[in-house]
């Protein structure tokens, strides 16, 4: 256990990484992120891969809605002052430049008219847009006219009645989900309706939606920002890991809402497997899982062309529909060698039959191999799905313990820690099987499988203790055992992830599939470079 000891001493000074008994990995993980409000877009991440405290750890920041708003406001104020344009115009310019302030200022200094035009802004400073009643006005959209018909125009002067303007804006916002690029309703006019004009026209509900959409474009425009995908979570995460690094690192981040996910592909935490393998694996499972089991149980392959054949009745004389090869279902040998002994195959020792069965066995091996990994993956996935139950049960147990044994709240927290550790470790275990499926056999793989086995045994052990009845859980001896086991599980997980991430960063894994280097975007096929 030399390597383990080395590892422990290397990180032992950082007690937030190796949680002590009552400390929980997840919570302690969240503590070492910097939550101050100061915007700091340059994380310089990619340079640091591999030189972290532990190899799988990456730095990131969580931003709450107010932070996101503040970042935008700060940028807008800055541009507003530097370029001497209104805040609304600064916002439109920034959005046009995808919030790249430096490029905006540079381009604007070069050629203000072109930049303004491209961004959809008026060049002539005119009076602020407001609702007006103009005599003789006819709305070009609804063709209504009449005294007292209020109308509105942005700086281009294309004037329409208030009802039409409102209708237009609400359709853009509500139905098309558009906010940053709503243009003047006039045919061929690409002036952008600014936030101030919009606020003048629409009702508060629509206004709120509009600003929500604007915030969304801010996060979506920046490559270093991503929304937390957890339902109802409004936070965004900033992380500097680039798409091209995804074959070297599995950038797992954890939101304030406790959801842990991969910054690369937005799926739930899938350490240690890199995004591209995860995509491949999920696709394979979606195609294969149930079918593969059935195929394994009910079919054989044609000895000649390897087509999968189901025997759904009739005699043992099989004719492959694809290649017309005739063979015996029982011994897989050539039918022609069966002579007249039809319907009863007793020729097990014949050469052609033996060869055919060997080939059959080989093609089965790949299927069996997949099923081996899939079943273990699915098992841990299922256990992970029961997390919610476990968690609610834990809470009940903790309350019960507090009542029955007179322990304080803080004294029963070890159950919470154990439950968290179980969930996290099972999630990791699940993906170790998907990862292992794609690993070529070599020494590294064996070390990986040892680590996997250690973690799995630790997890199953903890799982067993955890399910004891409350009366036994109150036993101080068991409490210490659970705390020890929890800590051990967390340590085993860190060791496994650290080892895997380190090898990934150094490019030492050998996979039995081709990795393209740039990970696929969600949904799409893998990219070629």
């Amino acid at each position, binding site marked *: 256990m030399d390597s383990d000891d080395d590892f422990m001493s290397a990180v032992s000074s950082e007690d937030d990484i190796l949680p002590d008994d009552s400390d929980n990995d997840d919570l302690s993980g969240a503590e070492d992120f910097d939550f101050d409000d100061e915007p700091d877009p340059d994380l310089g991440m990619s340079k640091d891969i591999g030189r972290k405290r532990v190899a799988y750890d990456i730095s990131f920041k969580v931003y709450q809605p107010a932070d996101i708003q503040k970042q935008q406001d700060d940028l807008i104020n800055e541009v507003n002052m530097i370029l001497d344009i209104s805040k609304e115009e600064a916002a439109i310019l920034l959005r046009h430049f995808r919030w790249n302030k430096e490029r905006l200022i540079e381009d604007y200094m070069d050629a203000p008219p072109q930049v303004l035009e491209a961004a959809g802004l008026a060049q002539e400073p005119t009076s602020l847009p407001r609702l007006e009643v103009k005599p003789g006005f006819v709305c070009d959209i609804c063709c209504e006219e009449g005294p007292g018909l209020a109308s509105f125009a942005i700086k281009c002067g*294309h004037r329409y009645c208030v009802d039409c303007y409102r209708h237009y804006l609400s359709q853009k916002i509500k139905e098309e989900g558009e906010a940053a690029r709503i243009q003047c309703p006039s045919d061929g006019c690409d002036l952008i309706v600014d936030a101030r004009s919009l606020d003048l026209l629409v009702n508060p509900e629509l206004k709120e939606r509009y600003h929500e959409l604007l915030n969304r474009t801010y996060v979506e425009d920046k490559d270093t920002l991503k929304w937390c995908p957890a339902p109802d979570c409004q936070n965004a995460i900033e992380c500097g890991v680039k798409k091209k690094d995804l074959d070297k690192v599995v950038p797992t981040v954890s939101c304030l809402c406790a959801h842990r996910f991969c910054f690369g592909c937005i799926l739930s935490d899938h350490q240690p497997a890199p995004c591209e393998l995860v995509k491949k694996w999920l696709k394979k499972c979606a195609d294969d899982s149930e079918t593969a089991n059935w195929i394994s149980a009910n079919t054989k392959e044609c000895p000649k062309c390897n087509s999968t054949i189901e025997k759904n009745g009739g005699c043992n004389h099989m004719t492959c529909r694809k290649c017309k090869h005739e063979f015996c279902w029982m011994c897989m040998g050539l039918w022609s060698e069966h002579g007249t002994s039809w319907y009863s195959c007793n020729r097990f020792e014949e050469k052609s039959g033996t060869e055919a069965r060997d080939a059959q066995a080989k093609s089965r091996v790949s299927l069996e191999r997949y099923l081996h990994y899939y079943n273990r993956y699915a098992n841990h996935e299922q256990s992970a799905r029961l997390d919610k139950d476990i968690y609610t049960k834990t809470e009940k147990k903790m309350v019960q313990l507090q009542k029955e044994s007179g322990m304080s709240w803080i004294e029963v927290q070890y159950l919470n820690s154990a439950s968290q550790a179980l969930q996290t470790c099972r999630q990791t275990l699940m993906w170790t099987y998907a990862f292992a499926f794609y690993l070529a056999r070599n020494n590294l793989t064996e070390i990986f499988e040892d680590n996997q086995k250690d973690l799995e045994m630790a997890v199953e052990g903890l799982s067993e203790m955890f399910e004891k009845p409350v009366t036994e859980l109150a036993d101080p001896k068991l409490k210490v055992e659970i705390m020890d086991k929890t800590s051990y599980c967390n340590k085993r997980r860190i060791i496994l992830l650290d080892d895997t991430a380190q090898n990934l960063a150094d490019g030492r894994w050998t996979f039995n599939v081709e990795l393209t280097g740039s990970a696929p975007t969600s949904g799409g096929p893998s990219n070629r470079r």
Partner: protein
Amino acid sequence: MASQKRIAKELADCTTHAPAGMSIALATDSDVHKWHVTLDGPAESIYSGGKFGLVVTLPPEYPFKAPVVTFATRIYHPNVTNDNVGSICLGLLKAENWKPASKLLSVLQAVRLLLVEPQPDDPLESRIADEYRRDRAEFDKNARAYVQRYAKGPVKFDGTNVGADAGAAGGSGKRSTG
């Protein structure tokens, strides 16, 4: 309703000042949301001599939503589906480009312009677009054959002169994705 007034005005504009080579009428007098347009193949185009039926359907939300324009007459063109639906690819009509102040008159003029200048870079029929770019003589021949076969005689809007088989009129007619 506001849109009725607008449509009535546009219809009046289009019928009194109909653009060259076009005649416009309602499909049925009771419904202002469906227009039948007869378009003469522009003299400067390969479609010259043909008469094409266009169906303009105005959605209930018009003018806030774009109208839908389809060819009722079969036409051999990179930007019109080579089937009996006759969908048109026109940038102006896409939801993100449509403006409530856009007028049907300009839509119809855009369709006419599409016959003069096909847009092979934005095709609905990529095979025809390829042919248009690579072998103009063959494209012209096929397009003329379609005009002869489908676009002569009185225009029908009920789908009876759109033909059933795609290949008969000279083009190999195999639809590619658009």
